[in-house]
């Protein structure tokens, strides 16, 4: 409880560090915040060309929205993923990047990874805003679902923040963590139905049937991936414009809270040793 109070007391510092990131990020660039869109747009272009035109992946049309635009469908999954991956990467490195500060000034160290959630989240919010405009222009009726979308965004931020907290500690002790995680993230992305619809996995799963003589299918294992649930929820809300599957939403919440609570506990236990281990 005392720890929570201390963290709460430093919320102003958290806000200031977040602002530092946001303000510092695009200083001295001409396009400023627009750069935040450049990466998703470039990925969108590449994936659309490769997966839509060359490999002919065709996701199902939005139901009931009736949308059938690959690029938009892609972004509904890609933007959350990019946020997640960036928070994990930057949050993991945040303690090391601020080594000078950690070794010279006392403050609750937890604000370092958390401020990354804030600053990356700020970019994400901007990107999602642009996505909503695009969705509206394409004829989707997203307005009723925005509130739930924000809830889902919050849950994903908790999940990513929790992982970042654990990894930040691990990274201080073993610098291998960052290299390892960047590989894991690459694989993870392709194990999540972001650039292809999950229906393709379902087809394969049916073809193989139960694995090793059990009733567990490929799909069951595939869906253990928490990001699969998150992406599904975002697509249901934004692309399909319907209530998200309650199981998906519930699982997202469980993953998010679980990761965040464990992340805080791990970070707290190791916080005092960070300065000398750096």
């Amino acid at each position: 409880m005392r720890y929570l109070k201390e963290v709460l007391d430093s919320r102003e510092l958290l806000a200031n560090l977040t602002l530092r990131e946001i303000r510092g990020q695009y200083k001295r660039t001409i396009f400023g915040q627009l750069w935040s869109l450049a990466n998703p747009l470039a990925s969108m272009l590449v994936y659309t060309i490769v997966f839509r035109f060359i490999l002919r992946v065709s996701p199902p049309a939005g139901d009931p929205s009736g949308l059938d635009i690959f690029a938009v469908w892609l972004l509904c999954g890609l933007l959350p993923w990019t946020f997640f991956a960036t928070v994990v990467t930057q949050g993991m490195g945040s303690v090391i990047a601020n080594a000078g500060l950690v070794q010279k000034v006392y403050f609750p160290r937890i604000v370092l990874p958390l401020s990354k959630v804030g600053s990356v989240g700020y970019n994400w919010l901007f990107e999602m805003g642009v996505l909503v405009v695009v969705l509206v222009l394409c004829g989707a009726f997203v307005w009723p679902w925005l509130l739930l979308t924000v809830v889902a965004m919050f849950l994903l931020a908790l999940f990513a923040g929790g992982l970042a907290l654990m990894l930040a500690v691990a990274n201080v002790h073993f610098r291998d963590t960052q290299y390892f995680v960047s590989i894991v993230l690459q694989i993870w992305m392709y194990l999540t139905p972001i650039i292809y619809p999950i229906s393709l996995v379902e087809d394969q799963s049916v073809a193989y049937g139960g694995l090793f003589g059990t009733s567990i299918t490929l799909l069951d294992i595939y869906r253990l991936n928490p990001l699969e649930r998150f992406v599904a929820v975002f697509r249901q809300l934004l692309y399909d414009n319907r209530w998200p599957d309650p199981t998906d939403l519930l699982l997202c919440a469980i993953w998010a809270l679980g990761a965040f609570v464990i992340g805080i506990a791990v970070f707290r236990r190791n916080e005092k040793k960070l300065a000398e281990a750096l």
Partner: protein
Amino acid sequence: MSEIAVRVDHVSKKFRLYHERNQSLKSAIMRGRRSVHEDFWALKDVNFEVPTGSTFGLIGSNGSGKSTLLKCLAKIYYPEKGSISYNGKIAALLEVGSGFHPELSGRENIFLNGSILGMTKKEVTRKFDEIVDFSGVEQFIDQPVKNYSSGMYVRLGFSIAINVNPDILVVDEVLAVGDAEFQEKCSQKFVDFKKDGKTVILVSHAMAAVREMCDHAAWLSHGELVAVGEAEPTIQAYLNSLNQGEGL
């Protein structure tokens, strides 16, 4: 001098010295459960009290553990044995301008650094003019701090730290970069501090400055406390030991 501002109670601090740089998974796995390191005690059973309202100097040769002790005081390191108790709010100035963001302006950095040091936005706003005044960098306050000279950097950082208004201020040898005028200003500030009944703990290699500013001192050597007490005899003992070392 009855009141105690800081009580350093039998503090020992251990570092692990690894024979190879050990921050890789491979070496962790290779060495298995058994870790290959030596324990190095940077502080050994250090025990003293700092009276409230005193200016307390920590002296000793390089590597004697002064900075380590200050970091323990500042809650950056946590001692393995013993404890440290305080009477009042403590602020530490171990390195000036840590936490400055080079691309942000002096103004923005004052707010950022202030909050890192634990000030609220309101407090910083209230003290903003005073901070800028003391630092003497008004003219450049809206410039990014990466364009500051190293002295200006220190001035701004020190002004922020001193305006945190702690009861106990802990300072490592950070003032050496400022020019004579600024050092004069700082000494004056320490005197004011003392007048207000506040405690300053400082590390310096400049014995003349320690003599002038401090009324109490502690002498550390290889992590052990050799002498503590009134400044003059302690400094003299330290200097004598140096001369003897030369003589041998």
